[in-house]
């Protein structure tokens, strides 16, 4: 069990159980106004998480705003991936994991920690660190999520696959080879294919777990561009170890350390004017 978990997330050595710090929420006046006009897509409320005996998240609270890109940054083992994978209940695939707290999902305001994990995953899409297309054709990869939902009508599939591939900025490269194997694509194309696959069922929330860490700078730039383009239509949470990436593409950023959310708020504010010393140490490269 431990080995399975270890594959996904580097565990923090020890989370101090005594004084759990209050997260600092950065909001400038303009942001507050923006936030007020915005709707919540999800709201994390004192979420803690354990891999067996190992506490990986300590009472994290964080609103997720609709149609914004939220970035999670922090050093290795800080719990950012663990938090991300809580949103689609990926931890439930492995034994011995435990949640405490809530993630309210809006608009219906339900705690997704208590929903059926399959139901949660039907609404929350995910893109992984390593491109992981299925050993099937390009078309079938994008159609996979639709087929899982019982959509088999050719016309519907064709239309949704095309739209998703366009959204993922891959359509022009693959439109003439839809029935080639997905493995014939380059790494960057495969990752965009995975994004198209996640977009096809029109998820309420799209999770990206260091989606560019295995890619070269050009492929990375393409993915950043397409994510920026998605901002108006999809709510995105992205985990990245690359601070420049977070600064470039996200609207909001959360800085995590040792399983805690240290600081969370407007990306510009957090990077230019961090309130917490640990945040400024990290973003100025003093550690991490």
């Amino acid at each position, binding site marked *: 069990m431990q080995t*399975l978990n270890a*594959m996904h997330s580097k565990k923090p050595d020890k989370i101090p159980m005594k004084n759990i710090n209050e997260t600092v929420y950065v909001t400038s006046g303009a942001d507050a106004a923006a936030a007020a006009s915005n709707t919540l897509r999800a709201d994390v409320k004192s979420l803690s998480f354990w891999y067996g005996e190992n506490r990986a998240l300590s009472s994290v609270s964080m609103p997720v705003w609709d149609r914004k890109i939220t970035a999670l940054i922090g050093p290795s083992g800080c719990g950012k991936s663990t938090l991300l994978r809580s949103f*689609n209940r*990926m931890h439930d*695939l492995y*034994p011995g994991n435990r949640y405490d707290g809530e993630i309210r999902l809006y608009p219906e305001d339900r705690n997704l920690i208590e929903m059926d994990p*399959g*139901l949660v*995953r*039907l*609404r929350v*899409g*995910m893109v*992984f660190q*390593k491109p*992981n*297309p*299925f*050993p099937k054709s390009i078309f079938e990869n994008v159609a*996979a*999520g639709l*087929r*899982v*939902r019982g959509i088999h009508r050719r016309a519907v599939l064709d239309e949704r696959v095309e739209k998703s591939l366009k959204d993922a900025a891959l359509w022009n490269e693959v439109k003439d080879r839809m029935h080639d*194997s997905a*493995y*014939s694509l380059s790494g960057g194309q495969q990752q965009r294919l*995975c994004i198209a*696959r*996640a977009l096809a*069922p029109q998820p309420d929330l799209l999770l990206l777990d260091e989606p560019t860490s295995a890619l070269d700078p050009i492929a990375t730039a393409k993915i950043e561009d397409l994510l920026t383009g998605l901002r108006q239509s999809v709510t995105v949470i992205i985990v990245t170890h690359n601070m420049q990436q977070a600064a470039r593409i996200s609207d909001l950023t959360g800085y995590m350390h040792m399983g805690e959310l240290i600081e969370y708020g407007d990306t510009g504010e957090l990077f230019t004017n961090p309130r917490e010393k640990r945040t400024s140490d990290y973003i100025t490269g003093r550690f991490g």
Partner: protein
Amino acid sequence: MASSPGKQPAQPELESIVRGNRRSDLVMAGIGMIVLLVAMALLAAVFIDLAVKGWPRLINPDFYINFPSRHPEQAGILSAAVGTTLVMLVTALVAIPLGVAAGVYLEEYAARSWITDVIEINVSNLAGVPSIIYGLLALGLFVHAFGLGETILTAGLVLALLILPVIIVATREAIRSIPLELREAAYGLGADKWQTVRLYVLPAARPGILTGAIVGLARAIGEAAPVITIGALTFIAFLPPPPVQAQPPFINFEWLSSPFTVMPIQLFNWVSRPQAEFHINAAATGVVLMVMTLGMNGLAIYIRYRLRRDAR
């Protein structure tokens, strides 16, 4: 680069280390090659020996279309070949679905507990049980308790039992070799367990499963002991009724309850005759059996190659 505090050996020393490594690589490659050649040579020797001895019969078409006979020069393997084919058909139809289903259950569904551990150990142990024990089990259970008689069905079932562990183990290993990322991709899309297994895990595991199934069948085809134990005939001069017929309902299952013989039994029968002429027949049968076994293994390799290539 050379800033490590430990003293770096001088260049000539490094060169001698590299030379030493290269030498031990060569020695290991040589040993491996010799071992491989010995194994291949033994197989080739057996095969060539049988082929030379059986040659007069192998090139005679009558050998393949005649029933056994007390005149060695007229005796053929028709009834044994048909019997083997039909028995293998039953074995494949029973063992592959059962074995794959059991493998999928153990790997994907069964909760980890001491019961599954015991089942797991037992499945592995069953692969090592002598085949005659399976014959005894089948004699008691299928022939007598169930009253199935000394029939093709019974033989197919006992051979299916015999290779079930092989197929289960192959299925589990094939499933286990599917990368975690692929499963997470499927679950991440909202697929449930059965969708994940059916749409993504099983197709990806197909090369391994098919290889295991064919290797199992290739083992079953050469088994004589359990089939003798259940009371297969050693001399049979008629064929079972054909599974297809001209009149409705066009298929019949009478062949399942027919008496039969299989090629290893035919071989055993001929080799135990005192007349040397029958030994020629036995050698020829041996060649046919080996060709069938090697052919099935070849098919397994080909299927695996094709499916792997298609998956790329």
